């Protein structure tokens, strides 16, 4: 079992990867996207978000450049690298299996599979 803060970090990371895979965007937009897609369930705190973004960039999974937001502000826009794409596939897969497993254990009924 990975420890809770690692699992949390991992969650933020995979959410970021998935988001910029869909479209390159800046930090605030990424948080908005996640909130909307999860129908308000998942809110990523600013600090955690940016720590995740810079960590992923250091690892070479995403890259950034300066750009302008819809509101005309100078922002840093993130995009997925090839390595990031591969990592995303692996992570998403692992997450799905984890979620399925937890759901199965929590399902009501007898102990039978």
């Amino acid at each position, binding site marked *: 079992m990975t420890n809770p803060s690692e699992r949390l970090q991992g969650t933020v990371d995979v959410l970021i990867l998935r988001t910029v895979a869909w479209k390159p965007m800046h*930090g605030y937009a990424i948080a908005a996207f996640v909130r909307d897609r999860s129908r308000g369930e998942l809110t990523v705190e600013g600090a955690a*978000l940016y720590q995740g*973004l810079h960590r992923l960039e*250091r690892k070479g999974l995403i890259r950034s450049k*300066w750009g302008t937001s819809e509101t005309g502000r100078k922002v840093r826009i993130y995009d997925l690298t090839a390595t990031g794409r591969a990592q995303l596939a692996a992570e998403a897969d692992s997450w799905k299996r984890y979620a399925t497993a937890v759901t199965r254990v929590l399902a009501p009924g007898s102990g039978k599979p």
Partner: protein
Amino acid sequence: MTDEPIVPTRSRGKIQADVREELDAWIDERAAELIGEGTSPENAREQARREFGDAAATERYCAGQDTAADRRIRVRIWLEEFFADMRIAARTLARTPTIAVVVLLTFGIGVGATTAVFSAIHSLLLRPLPYPDENAVVQIPSVTNGEIGPGAQLSATALVALRERTTSFSAVGGAGWGGYALVENGEPEVVSGGRVTANMFDVLGTRAAIGRTLIAGDDSSGAAPVVVLSHGLWQRRFGGDSSIVGRTIDLSGAMRTVVGVMPPRFRLPTMEETEIWVPLDLAPVLRDVNRAQRFRFMRLFAREKPGVTHDAARADVDRTMLALAKEFPASFEGIGATVRSVRTAVVGDTSARLLVLMGAAAFVLLIACANIAGLLLARALSRRHETTVRIALGAGRRRLIRQFLAEGAVLSLSGGAIGLAIAALGVAALRRITVSSVPDGTTFAIEPQVLAFAMVITAAGGLLFSLVPAFAATRGAHTTLRQREGSGATSRSQARMRLGLITGQLAVSVALLVAAGLFLRSMHRLTTLDLGYSTERILTFDVGLPLSRYGTAAKQDIFWDALHEQLRAVPGVVAVGSAGNLPLGGGAGASLSIEGRIVEGERPPESRYASVSDDYFETLGIPLVRGRMFSSIDHDDGPNVVIISNTLAKRFWPAGDPIGVRVKIGPDPSVPWSTIIGVVGDVRFGAAGEYMPTVYASARQDHWGGGAVLVRTAGDPVALTAGVRDAVKRVDPILPIANVQTLDQYRDATQVVADRRLQLQLMLVFAIAALLLSAIGVYGTSAYSVEARRREFGIRMALGAPRSRVLMLALRDGARAAVIGVLLGVPLSLLLASQLRELLFQVQPFDPATVAVVLAVLGLVVLAASVGPARRATRVDPVRAMRSD
């Protein structure tokens, strides 16, 4: 839309500013959202900041991540540029191939020589010994007159005392020599064996590869006769038969059961030639008190208890030996013992000599580096103009230095590769030429440590090659724009530096060549040393008479007479003699008591002793000084007779006549008296030993059951080998003979000679390398100097100077440097030679003849190397030279 990429390398401040700006953008967006939802602007910003989380910590974290990423990129960029620089450097070097080739060869020779020697030293000194936990294994050699005795052997009583009275050792074992006739599976062969106490393998710690080693009880009287084989013998004579354990084999007529085979690299320390090991039963020796105390036939080895230091063990041994000397002064007065690690015992004092050779190799490397530094320096200085311009145009100093580093890297890496190739060749050659001089089982190979050593040298070289020229070229660059190459002050200082390097190189070369010359002369003196007997045209071999068939003195006499007769009948044989042992082997020791001169409690004089045949002296050319030699009238039933050597006669009868005096040989007082019947000339013992007082007995009266046979031939002794073997077969068809060789070959194979030969060969390698490098250096420097002074020569010739004058000008500076270098070299060689004093044989460190020869040779080489470029100076076309500005 201002899309700019993030600049790959940012300063620390920029990184932090960027992060702050990015986080502020989030806060702005959130605040804008809140304002849209109706919050007031000031509250909106406050709330957005709160919602963000720990901004300060996040800033620090993000800046840290970015810095790490940034650093990685910086490194990658630097490496890419460096490799690009290396490619450029390689191309530039290819345009001036002479310099490149010279540098590569020079560095290659330097690295190659040092690496080859280092690998030899590593193999000889540092190789792991086949004894687990070797630090606890020691030898206890005997000490007489403050020095470790040549045989280092002690008696049985000493062994028992050291076992029982010391507390430092967990086991003390003894090993003596024995020769065994092996008739199994083929040609009879005499195998050198070790007679060892059963605990010897516990002392050494090595386990058997197959079966077992000796165990307690194997050496008690009445135990079943067993033997342990060496790996080499097992392969050679028994074909590596895996069912060997349990088989009985015939050794000198007695059957023994093989209980085990040792692993491939195992040797008995200091007795490496022994190939089988049989248990040594000390009980019979100990029963005879005299033999027990005085017959020094064993080398002792021991294993220190954990935690015991060599010094403590030594003190323990000293105490015991002193106690023995008090209890049995007649046997142990003056006999001491010490403790030395088994490594020191095995490697011997070759370590000091090899380190000297290492020093020589270092010298060669120094010369090589000096050569290269000189060349590159010259090149860099001539490119100073170009470099200066580049700096003025804005090239960073660091960038330029990196380019020099790249050039240095290219040179040192390729040079290092060549060096390794040369080292591999050198090691292979060393292996072949030293096969007789080094302990068996030493493999010269390029080990990982040696490789690491080579790489360190290469790296150091690379740094040297890049930094020296780099700094020379960029130093004070901004002020030298006005100066042009080849003009005024710079060219003079350049020239001085170059010549200085040449001077240094020549000095070192002189030293090495003189050392090599001294070694050569030592070798010559050693091999032509007058031993007191002749070694020319004599074939020798060993025989051992098995007791089962030659149990009586009469049978042995019959054998020897028959053998001598058969051998004399072989065509080409001039004389035949035999002896229990030969002087080259060191001889046996015995004490001598002279009738009428015994003093109670005093130790009788020691002398060498041998039992010889009638014609022994004649065969070896040892002259008769007084009296007569042995003959058939001196038979076993008659009165005992001996012959003594001249020094013995002079010492005890300086004015009188020893003939007729009665003496006793050996420690046993019950032995009958012998009468001196003759005096012969002295012989040296060993290949380089002293003349020693010697007593000879007749083989008819003292039967040794074997020994060495000497056959003097009219022509080439080797040609008669077959005839000699046949003669032996005619006397006894199944008697093995061993060590068939000429006496000269025997002499060359002794440790003393073989050691020196190795040193000589290695030193010659260095001297030749030094000579080559100096020649290259001189050539390179003259070529360069001529090139640099083209204009000058052109002007002179245009002004009418004759060719010969130009030639002399071209040669003058070089000649002056050469003379100074050579003169400096003479005292340097004296210094080196005095360090090597112990390695020289009958040659003084300052040997004018050698020095003169070396100076002449070096002078010729320097002349030859500088003549080529000098002549090119005279062929300079004046017009073209002046135009090439």
